[in-house]
């Protein structure tokens, strides 16, 4: 703190006595301040915080003495010594006149210094207070953003238990859980270097990318590649993110994982016997450039009685009261003692009792997942939207048949229908079977039985391409009707080619046969299938309101 070379202003409150005049003259002579202001004692108040170092000069101090002095850095100058009782009512500085000028000068300078220092201290305290309030406000905002960013984190998934204990207000660890569209489960545990707000910042883009990609059902190899690309660009060189990510299949029997710089996740059975240690095979995210990054996954088989424990190094580096690390061995012993999900609270209590009163030195995260069938259905259908009834008809010429991907084109016309999304694969299949039958058997005269062996199978499709290219005449007509009230699609396909015998095509129905499946599929997946004119025309329907097609 800066000390001014000379005090700018000193205020002197006095009682107009000759004693006061004498003191003021002496003080002026000492030239302790650039300016000395004189004030009437009556205008002084003990409750005020004076703007400048202040001297009080009076013959009779009784009027100014009070224990409730707002600023103790004030100097009272009196001609007679104060009694003990009087002194006890004056928390400020006091001197009895006369005093040798050297002592007087020192005492006044000391009071000035004390006054200035107290003022600076007060200013610092106020700015600190203001700053704290601002930080609190900003933390609130950031917490709000985090809550929203993680609002869809599925930590309530019934077969997982988690412990997330940040060492500071914000967690540099991240534990994300979300279902995938195929009914599987994605779980990610990540640990940014350091703890507090800075690492937590990295959690935002990571979690957003995680949820968006999980919705699309992409593989975790693709996820980590994207995460690494993003973090490599975003993070400073000395910051990176250890990450363990896994996908459990809907059956709970297959677990794929990628471990970059995290402690080995443990797979153990109901007895707590460790079956696998899923060790890190990779560097943490954000370290390697996209060219050097390795997204190689490992897949293991799991059983419904298996558990997977994921944890950050904060768990095994947990410090006890006696400053000992927990260590991997002890942690594994704890897991063996409390293997199941219902034991999780006791496992946490065990860790807590190990730590005792020792504060957390690092963020600590632990998740235990049981490899049960996930029972996660497909995501909910989009809200019901009513569509117009419509029909369309398309008569495809030889040129169209040679150039267009007809089935995809028809499907793209239907794509905007409500609820089509979860039926598109089935409708594609139905259209493809009906269309290929018309084209391959009706117009091109191909015989499915050719497909019975692998060579013939390839040859069949080679022949299909050759004959289609050489086709000179013929047409296929497609008609689609949509009945919105029944959510019913009605298809009709006709062709100009030779009639063909369906019964011959489908006479036996062995599951291993590589041909003749199309008609069976059509009959089982569509409604009201009817052939007319010896296979020259086929008609079938499909209800879009059948819930998920698996219900059929």
């Amino acid at each position, binding site marked *: 703190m800066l000390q001014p070379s000379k005090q700018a202003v000193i205020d002197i409150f006095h009682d107009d006595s000759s004693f006061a005049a004498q003191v003021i003259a002496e003080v002026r002579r000492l030239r302790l301040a650039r300016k000395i202001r004189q004030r009437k004692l009556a205008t002084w108040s003990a409750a005020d915080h004076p703007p400048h170092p202040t001297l009080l000069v009076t013959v009779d101090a009784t009027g100014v003495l009070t224990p409730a002095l707002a600023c103790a850095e004030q100097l009272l100058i009196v001609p007679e010594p104060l009694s003990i009782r009087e002194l006890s009512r004056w928390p400020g500085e006091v001197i009895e006149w006369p005093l040798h000028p050297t002592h007087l000068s020192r005492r006044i300078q000391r009071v000035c210094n004390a006054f200035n220092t107290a003022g600076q201290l007060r200013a610092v305290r106020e700015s600190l207070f203001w700053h704290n309030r601002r930080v609190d406000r900003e933390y609130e905002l950031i917490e709000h953003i985090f809550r929203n960013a993680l609002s869809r984190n599925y930590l309530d998934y019934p077969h997982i238990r988690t412990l997330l204990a940040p060492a500071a207000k914000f967690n540099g660890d991240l534990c994300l859980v979300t279902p995938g569209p195929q009914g599987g489960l994605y779980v990610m545990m990540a640990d940014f270097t350091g703890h507090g707000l800075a690492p937590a910042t990295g959690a935002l883009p990571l979690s957003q990318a995680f949820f968006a990609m999980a919705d699309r059902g992409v593989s975790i190899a693709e996820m980590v590649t994207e995460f690494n690309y993003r973090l490599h660009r975003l993070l400073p060189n000395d910051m990176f993110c250890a990450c363990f990510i896994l996908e459990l*299949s809907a059956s709970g029997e297959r677990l794929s994982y990628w471990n970059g710089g995290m402690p080995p996740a443990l797979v153990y059975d109901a007895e707590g016997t460790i079956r696998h240690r899923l060790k890190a095979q990779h560097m943490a995210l954000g370290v390697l450039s996209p060219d050097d990054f390795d997204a190689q996954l490992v897949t293991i088989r799991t059983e419904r009685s298996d558990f997977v424990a994921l944890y950050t190094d904060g768990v095994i580096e947990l410090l006890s009261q006696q400053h000992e690390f927990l260590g991997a061995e002890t942690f594994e012993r704890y897991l063996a003692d409390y293997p199941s999900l219902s034991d999780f609270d006791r496992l946490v209590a065990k860790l807590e009792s190990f730590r005792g009163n020792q504060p957390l030195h690092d963020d600590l995260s632990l998740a235990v997942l049981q490899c049960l069938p996930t029972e996660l259905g*497909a995501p909910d259908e989009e809200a019901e939207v009513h569509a117009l009834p419509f029909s369309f008809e398309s008569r495809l010429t030889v040129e169209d048949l040679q150039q267009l991907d007809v089935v995809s084109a028809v499907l793209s016309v239907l794509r905007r229908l409500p609820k089509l999304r979860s039926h598109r694969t089935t409708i594609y299949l139905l259209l493809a079977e009906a269309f*290929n039958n018309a084209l391959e058997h009706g117009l091109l005269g191909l015989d499915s039985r050719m497909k019975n062996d692998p060579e013939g*199978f390839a040859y069949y499709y080679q022949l*299909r391409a050759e004959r289609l290219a050489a086709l000179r005449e013929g047409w296929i007509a497609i008609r689609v009707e949509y009945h919105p009230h029944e959510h019913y699609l009605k298809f009709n396909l006709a062709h100009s080619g030779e009639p063909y015998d369906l019964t011959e095509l489908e006479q036996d129905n062995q599951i291993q046969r590589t041909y003749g499946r*199309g008609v069976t599929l059509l009959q089982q*997946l569509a409604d009201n299938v009817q052939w007319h004119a010896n296979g020259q025309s086929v008609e079938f329907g499909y209800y879009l309101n059948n819930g998920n*097609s698996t219900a*059929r």
Partner: protein
Amino acid sequence: MSVSRHLTSDGKELTISIHGKFDFGVVNDFRRAYSSLGDEKPRVYIDLRETEYLDSSALGMLLNMRKAINEHVESIHIINCRAEVRNILDISRFDKLFIID
């Protein structure tokens, strides 16, 4: 590339993924994907995660693959099927021939 394959470095797992449309358009790519299996009798995974559409020719191709490699592999799994794809495989009783997961 709509058919991709990956054999793990220990040669014990071969994953073949089909992206987008699985039909006769990929017949040669698909055959090529299982043409070399190594000597480790790998476990084969057909990953249909990104298979949007398929038709009966895809079923034929899967059966041809099975005929060709069944003796030389540990097992054949069809994985990551969306509900609709799973339904089609079930109707075709593929669960009797493959491990569908």
